[in-house]
């Protein structure tokens, strides 16, 4: 605990795994890490959270990460085509979209959006965030999109949507189920979970990267995908399988 | 009639001392203020003009009370109609010579500015920044500016220290003429006593 290896030691000490993960995985991964370390006391796992896009930038420019857990499936493909990979991209979880509100009762579902009391609807930028992309697709499919288009405020990512909605500046917002299950978000507001039919779940994939700790990283990634981990994922609002 | 009573503690070469003035001076006088270096002449001017509030002070100009510390009356410098020529000139670097002089006028009158420029041999520099002038030239600008203000009381802090003898004569005459024509009261600090003996109507020696 006292002596943390620094970057130069990392290369020599193979039991050290450096993970880059999408910011919304923070709580669940911390939990998974604790369990993994308890089982493998000789291993060290260090997780850096950030926006998937920025983490990919860093990896492309030589960041010393061994495993990348993206919030989508595109970024790991990009890393693969850049030849940074050790293994192949693999989906580790699916996220679900929920409609969340601080004050309004959203239990009735999407129809509420047309309500005149709803002025601002926060959605993540579909060009940057897969949750935003799937939300927009869902709204288009239901025919609601054109009716509420002028109420939408675009956020950079789902965290920001959650901030807009949880402070009451946006009346409702589309966030991830995992966000909605956060302690503070649970306490503050209520949410409606969009069914798989209403909105396609968001596949999130990860990829093991080339490097000195690639085999250890693969082991950790396998653990994340194991049956044992399923329970944890569910608790935090992720699915590990979807009905095809 | 100008009534002045001041008592103000200052720190001089011989330790703490009181600057004490108690005078009644009739309007239109030409007062020569003298005293050792550091005795409080400049401070006296700053008290008159309202830039320094003395420990105790009473100043009355005809019926107008400018200062009465006992009754907490303090007319700010802006309302005293007293002009002051600073020992270090305090010319405004952002204005030309002409603008400096014109700025001081309460009633704008370009003719007067031109006249002053002419008399003090400053015409050539009217559009120059005062920072580009020689010491004596700057002093002349400062004097012209103070006169341009046309105040009831004119305070001049060593107005001739940096000019040559010929120019000094010109300036002095200008002052006297101004003094007579406008019936304004002049207080002039100067170390060359002889020069003033002949025409000063009052001698105020600060000790």
């Amino acid at each position, binding site marked *: 605990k006292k002596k943390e290896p620094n970057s130069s030691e990392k290369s020599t000490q193979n039991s050290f795994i450096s993970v880059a993960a999408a910011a919304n995985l923070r709580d669940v991964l911390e939990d998974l890490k604790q369990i993994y370390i308890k089982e493998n006391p000789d291993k060290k796992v260090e997780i850096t959270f950030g926006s998937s896009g920025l983490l990919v930038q860093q990896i492309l420019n030589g960041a010393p990460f061994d495993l990348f857990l993206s919030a989508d499936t595109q970024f790991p493909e990009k890393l693969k085509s850049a030849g940074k990979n050790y293994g192949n991209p693999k989906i580790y979880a699916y996220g679900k979209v929920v409609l969340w509100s601080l004050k309004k009762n959203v239990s009735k579902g999407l129809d509420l959006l047309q309500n005149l009391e709803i002025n601002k609807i926060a959605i993540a930028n579909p060009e940057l965030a897969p949750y935003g992309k799937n939300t927009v697709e869902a709204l288009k499919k239901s025919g609601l999109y054109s009716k509420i288009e002028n109420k939408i405020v675009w956020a950079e990512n789902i965290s*920001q949507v959650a901030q807009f909605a949880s402070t009451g500046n946006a009346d409702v917002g589309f966030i991830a189920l995992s966000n909605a299950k956060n302690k503070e978000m649970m306490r503050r507001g209520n949410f409606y979970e969009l069914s798989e039919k209403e909105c396609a779940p968001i596949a999130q994939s990860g990829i093991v990267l080339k490097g000195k700790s690639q085999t250890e990283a693969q082991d950790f990634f396998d653990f994340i995908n194991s049956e044992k981990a399923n329970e944890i994922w569910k608790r935090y609002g992720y699915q590990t399988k979807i009905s095809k | 009639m100008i009534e002045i009573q001041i008592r103000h503690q200052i720190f001089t070469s011989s330790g703490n001392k009181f600057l004490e003035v108690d005078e009644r001076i009739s309007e239109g006088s030409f007062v020569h203020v003298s005293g050792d270096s550091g005795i409080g002449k400049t401070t006296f001017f700053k008290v008159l003009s309202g830039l320094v509030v003395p420990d105790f002070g009473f100043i009355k100009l005809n019926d107008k009370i400018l200062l009465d510390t006992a009754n907490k009356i303090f007319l700010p410098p802006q309302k005293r109609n007293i002009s002051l020529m600073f020992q270090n000139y305090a010319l405004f*670097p*952002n204005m030309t010579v002409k603008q400096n002089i014109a700025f001081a006028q309460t009633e704008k009158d370009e003719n007067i500015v031109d006249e002053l420029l002419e008399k003090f041999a400053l015409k050539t520099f009217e559009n120059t920044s005062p920072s580009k002038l020689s010491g004596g030239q700057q002093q002349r600008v400062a004097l012209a500016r103070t006169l341009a203000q046309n105040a009831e009381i004119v305070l001049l802090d060593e107005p001739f220290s940096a000019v040559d003898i010929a120019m000094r004569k010109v300036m002095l005459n200008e002052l006297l003429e101004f003094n007579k024509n406008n019936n304004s009261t002049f207080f002039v600090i100067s170390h060359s006593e002889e020069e003033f003996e002949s025409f000063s109507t009052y001698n105020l020696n600060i000790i």
Partner: protein
Amino acid sequence: MLDQDFIYTLLLTGKLALITTVILILIGIPVAYWLSYSRFKLKFIAETLISMPMVLPPTVMGYYLLVAFSPENAFGDFLQKYCDVRLAFSFQGIVIASIIANLPFMIQPLQNGFSALNDDLRQASYTMGKSKIVTLFKVLIPNIKKSVITGIALTFAHCIGEFGIVIMVGGNIPKETRIASVAIYDQVQALNFEAANRYAFVLFILSFLILLLIYSINRKTNFTTFR
């Protein structure tokens, strides 16, 4: 080379920077004046407070503003009910955010300027019967031109580049709150490097030209004779 959207975005950025800078001059001059000339003993505390917007990460600062602007909150509620303004997601909102974020960049140079000025100038102007206002505008400000220019340039430049607080308060609404720095950031996030480079290049050149203009006002050198 640039799409229409980005041109709107640039115009909005310019508008935000201009409005912020102008308002900050109007706020900055009296505040800096007070900080320089007041004899209030504890004014160094005020100086410290003015710098404080800088120590919080802009996005976090933005989050707190969101909380303050929220209609759930007394302040935000009051604004919405009685003034019919909603600060979040509006141009007004990002102007306010941007003013707070840039406060120190305007006030600090101005205050420095006033303090460095020989106090005799102010006193001389007062004895000429000039009011404090006339003295401020005709004597003090013209003599701290360099400080004013520094304040304007710092504020303007920071306003262009700092988007954390803006994006947090304003979201990312085209023609309303989407400024150039956000657009560039988005392109980098989406790994569209070429678009990002193009945008950044244009922003850089335009800002360079504007700043060049601002600084060139100040060009004349004060040391002519001495080598």
